[in-house]
């Protein structure tokens, strides 16, 4: 009599195993195939095209009744095995017992459902089998129906695209910072998100789901941040867990999965296992390629032949029509690795290879994945690529092909894109002037179009439009790019961030053709500032792009300790604050307490790990960070003014306090120091500050662009105004103009020298509408950024930033 082989689970792995078995020896076993799903083997990978309507279920069936018949396979579909009796060698289903000589467990995995309140409501479903697909399709037949997909990985995104194609409104919630974070880096994920958003799929990253709402059926999804998304169905695609229940109950050895040896044998010699349910050498698998290898091995084991399963490098693709991505290997950042990056913004292409010891260890590609297989085989083989490094990124086809055109970013701008913001000149107008008027130089374009005649920050862009339009006839003056990652200047980048509405770091780097995958220590802080200044609501500050002082919210000193400076509004303090400062100085053994030039108390020599506790103590006394470390408002120094001085003409202390309360917390291109003096005797030394106000009998004289550092400069007069309110408005508008236009790390005086004081006056003094708009934009930004970093961080004492072994790779002199 033939030996009895019982196979539990008719999935991708068992289908393959049976094929191999029958090919080698069709007569050895009599096979019974038991499946919990009420159907036989089908290609689970292709469920997404069935969902989207691009395949039918019939097309993805891999083994049909004819095949089972030809191979004499007895099938029991729609029957779950509920128990294994190892002593009697039988499995139990609802229809009875089936005896085995050999048992093959291929039960796959079960979708993981987040244990959220409401997760058991009707309409909440996983995405694993055909029944799930049919449930989604039923929902899609309702008019105007809405789906929320929890999980922005491979499965979730395929579900989202399919549901969208079937007409549903779809929101994807992803807990991490970017989509498919296990397979893609931020740059590739940016392009993917853009692609999905082009399908009107809403993507919400960093989304923490709090609850699923509804009475009987799901009605909405609630996030921790209070956002509510209405939903007729919720698809949960947050991960899978090996389906090991029957094996565990039977006492077979289990880890994360059913533990197997190289020959796919479990701890019971009569029982074998393959597929997503197994754990091999500590690994479990969720992609089909290794499972096919396991199927091959188990077929041999069943025929008493030697075989061993060896894991191989895996690659990922996403089955969404029109989305072209590829990812393989390891692409985490590390000091021992180097990147080769290629971007083509016009075509939406991004490619990155990660090299270690002259070998490719990782590859991420978006928009052009033709060479994916070749890179994967190089990763698998560990090929030494030093000989072809320069052309490697272009794949095997490369034979001297074209380099990326550095003008691509400008060439890609549409005609309506505004090039010169001051005078409202768009690209089309400049191109027209060049072609119609036969213009060849910047000055001619300036004269004809008025572009670049005001603040001049768009000069570089106008030159590039000239270059793009004239080709070789234009000789580009040499310019200084932002850093080696890009050919664009700071001014170009700032202008393009606004013109192209680039709202994230990956967006800037992709659309402007960055040559690195994630920038460097020069461009990242600059981009971080430009983005938060231009898009305060949309952009989330990236603390990793900041210098150590700004990350630690304290000034690092030359011995590695920090200095702590509490804010004292206008330089005014009181006994209670002074007592708290004194207590903190004693409690934390502060070696030096010193007055600063800006009328503050400086506690020097604080150990990094003491910072959070010390801030908490100072916070408790009502003191907040003085931002003595930041590119932002430092101090407003005041004299005693009319309150106590007989020469005082106005309330200089009061104005100073008002200004400091209004301006603190905002980030700017460089530090900003202010002072207000109550009369021209100028005790607050206002005339050497970035902004200095001198009170006079008739009102307020506002000067800007002073400095008393390496350069010594007196302020230049910006305006004289009669009222305090006007003095405040002009000051705020000036700060915002500086924030919106200056190059990162240009102090105000340097920036004014570039754009001209006259232009600044026009913007903030003469043009009242513009002044009001600047003030409004500043206030909007403050609604996000005027927060005390001490309070935020004191509460998280275990913040990783404050563990003693911090990274001091970006130190910066305290100024």
């Amino acid at each position, binding site marked *: 009599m033939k030996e009895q082989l019982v196979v539990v689970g008719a999935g991708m792995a068992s289908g393959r195993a049976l094929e191999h078995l029958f090919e080698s020896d069709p007569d050895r076993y009599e096979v019974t195939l038991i499946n919990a799903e009420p159907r036989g083997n089908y290609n689970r990978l292709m469920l997404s095209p069935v969902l989207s*309507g691009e395949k039918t279920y019939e097309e993805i069936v891999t083994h049909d009744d004819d095949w089972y018949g030809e191979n004499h396979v007895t099938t029991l579909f729609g029957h779950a095995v509920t128990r294994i009796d190892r002593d009697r060698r039988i499995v139990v289903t609802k229809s009875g017992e089936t005896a085995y000589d050999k048992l093959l467990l291929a039960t796959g995995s079960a979708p993981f459902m987040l244990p959220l309140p409401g997760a058991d409501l009707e309409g909440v479903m996983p995405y694993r089998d055909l029944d799930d697909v049919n449930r989604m399709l039923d929902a*899609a037949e309702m008019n105007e129906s809405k789906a929320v997909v929890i999980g922005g990985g491979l499965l979730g995104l395929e579900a989202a695209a399919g549901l969208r*194609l079937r007409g549903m409104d779809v929101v994807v919630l992803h807990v991490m910072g970017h989509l498919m974070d296990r397979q893609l880096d931020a740059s590739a994920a940016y392009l993917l998100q853009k692609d999905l958003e082009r399908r*009107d799929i809403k993507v919400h990253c960093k989304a923490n789901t709090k609850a699923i709402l509804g009475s009987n059926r799901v009605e909405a999804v609630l996030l921790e941040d209070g956002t509510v998304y209405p939903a007729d169905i919720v698809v949960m695609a947050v991960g899978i867990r090996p389906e090991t229940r029957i094996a565990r109950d039977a006492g077979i050895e289990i880890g994360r999965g059913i533990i197997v040896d190289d020959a796919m044998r479990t701890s019971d010699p009569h029982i074998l296992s393959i597929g997503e349910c197994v754990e091999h050498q500590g690994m479990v698998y969720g992609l089909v390629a290794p499972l096919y290898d396991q199927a091959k091995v188990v077929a041999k084991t069943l025929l008493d032949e030697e075989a061993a399963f060896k894991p191989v490098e895996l690659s990922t693709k996403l089955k969404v029509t029109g989305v072209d991505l590829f990812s393989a290997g390891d692409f985490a950042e590390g000091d021992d690795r180097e990147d080769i990056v290629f971007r083509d913004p016009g075509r939406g292409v991004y490619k990155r290879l990660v090299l270690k010891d002259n070998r490719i260890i990782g590859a991420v590609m978006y928009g052009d994945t033709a060479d994916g297989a070749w890179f994967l085989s190089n990763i698998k083989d560990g090929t030494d690529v030093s000989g072809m490094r320069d052309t490697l990124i272009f794949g*095997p086809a490369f034979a001297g092909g074209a380099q990326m055109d550095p003008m691509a970013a400008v060439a890609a701008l549409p005609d309506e894109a505004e090039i010169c913001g001051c005078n409202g000149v768009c690209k089309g107008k400049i191109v027209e002037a060049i072609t119609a008027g036969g213009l060849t130089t910047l000055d001619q374009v300036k004269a004809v179009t008025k572009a670049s005649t005001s603040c001049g920050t768009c000069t570089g862009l106008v030159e590039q439009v000239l270059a793009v339009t004239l080709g070789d006839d234009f000789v580009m003056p040499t310019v200084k790019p932002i850093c080696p990652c890009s050919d664009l200047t700071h001014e170009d980048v700032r202008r393009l961030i606004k013109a192209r509405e680039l709202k994230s770091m990956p967006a800037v780097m992709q659309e402007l053709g960055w040559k690195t995958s994630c920038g460097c220590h020069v461009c990242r802080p600059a981009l971080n500032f430009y983005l938060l200044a231009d898009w305060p609501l949309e952009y989330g500050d990236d603390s990793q792009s900041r210098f150590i002082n700004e990350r630690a919210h304290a000034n690092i000193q030359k011995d590695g300790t920090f200095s702590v400076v509490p804010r004292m509004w206008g330089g005014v303090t009181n006994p209670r604050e002074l007592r708290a400062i004194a207590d903190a100085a004693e409690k934390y053994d502060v070696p030096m307490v010193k007055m600063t030039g800006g009328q503050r108390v400086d506690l020097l020599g604080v150990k990094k790990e003491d910072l959070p506790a010390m801030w908490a103590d100072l916070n408790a006394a009502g003191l907040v960070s003085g931002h003595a470390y930041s590119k932002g408002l430092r101090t407003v120094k005041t004299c005693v003014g009319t309150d106590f001085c007989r020469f005082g003409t106005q309330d200089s202390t009061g104005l100073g306090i008002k200004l400091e309360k209004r301006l603190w917390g905002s980030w700017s291109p460089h530090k900003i120091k202010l002072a207000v003096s109550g009369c021209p005797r100028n005790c607050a030394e206002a005339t050497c500050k970035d902004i200095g106000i001198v009170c006079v009998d008739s009102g307020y004289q506002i000067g800007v662009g002073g400095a008393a550092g390496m350069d010594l400069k007196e302020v230049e007069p910006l305006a004289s105004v009669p009222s305090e309110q006007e003095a405040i408005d002009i000051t705020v508008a000036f700060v915002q103009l500086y924030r919106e236009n200056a190059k990162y790390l240009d102090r105000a005086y340097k920036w004014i020298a570039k754009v001209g004081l006259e232009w600044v006056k026009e913007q903030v003094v003469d043009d009242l509408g513009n002044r009001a708009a600047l003030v409004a934009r500043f206030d909007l930004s403050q609604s996000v950024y005027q927060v005390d970093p001490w309070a935020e961080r004191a509460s998280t004492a275990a913040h990783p930033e404050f563990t003693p072994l911090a990274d001091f790779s970006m130190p910066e002199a305290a100024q």
Partner: protein
Amino acid sequence: MQARILDTVETAQSFIQATEIWVPDAAGTRLVRSDGLYGLHGAFGSDSSGHSFAMGQGLPGRVWAEGRPIILNDVQDGTFVRADSAERAGLTAAAAVPVYAGNLIKGVLVMLCGDPDFGVGAIEVWHSNNAPGSVMELDGGFYGSAKQFCEVSERTAFKRGQGLPGGVWASKTPMLMRDLGRGYGFVRAESAGAAGLTTGLGIPVPAPGGSSYVLTLLSACATPIARRYELWDVVPGRGGQKAIGALVDGLCDIDGPLWGTERRIQPWQGPVGRAMATGVPVAEVPSGTHRYEGMVALPVHAHGEVTHVVAWFF
């Protein structure tokens, strides 16, 4: 082993009764006929052979001038230069689709249909001006006897990513839908099911200017638009290497689904390879088989290169 999706209907009459390709002449000033498949309408074919169209002239010339696909529901409306000959042949409607590489016209595909009361199927052109928040709306369509489906389509708009038109629009990629009777736009799906329309081919039609166009061919079993569909992805050649076409999806009334096994094609290899290499649409009688009366290979361009070729056999 794999199920058949398209019914084998050897005898069924085609929904599209004549197909022709018009291409720019050497001087680039007129469109001349490069291919023509006329089936039962040989006389119309011979009448057409002497014609050529300047920009703006006749249906092909109008497509060229306006830079967009056009559907004429009544070829007697004045645009169609060969109206008399068409009338004699019983051809009543025409769809003309330009193939552009950027701003450069590579050719115009013209498809002619017969009696509007005979046969179920649909040739549609969908359009969006791509303004923020815009949708795809029907620009023109020929539906044969599927009158109710026509009315519903006129009232349906597709958002980005939704349904066959919206999906092709958003992905800029051809798609072959199997099952038009479920989901998307609900009412339209329902009436597609009612009309017996099952298979839908959607093709992006790049055109100069800011608008997006999508051509859809919706097919019913009894009067199929095609009996075999092939969707080829093209990896453009670069660095001196040849382009490669890969069959990514397809359906055939005899071979069943065409996506399971890997099939590749070289430039110039067969009509699909020719469309890939030249960027010009092809219509011809396939050689080496008697299964089909004709086939069309339509290239889709993006960024100055052929990125897809869509072929259908009838």
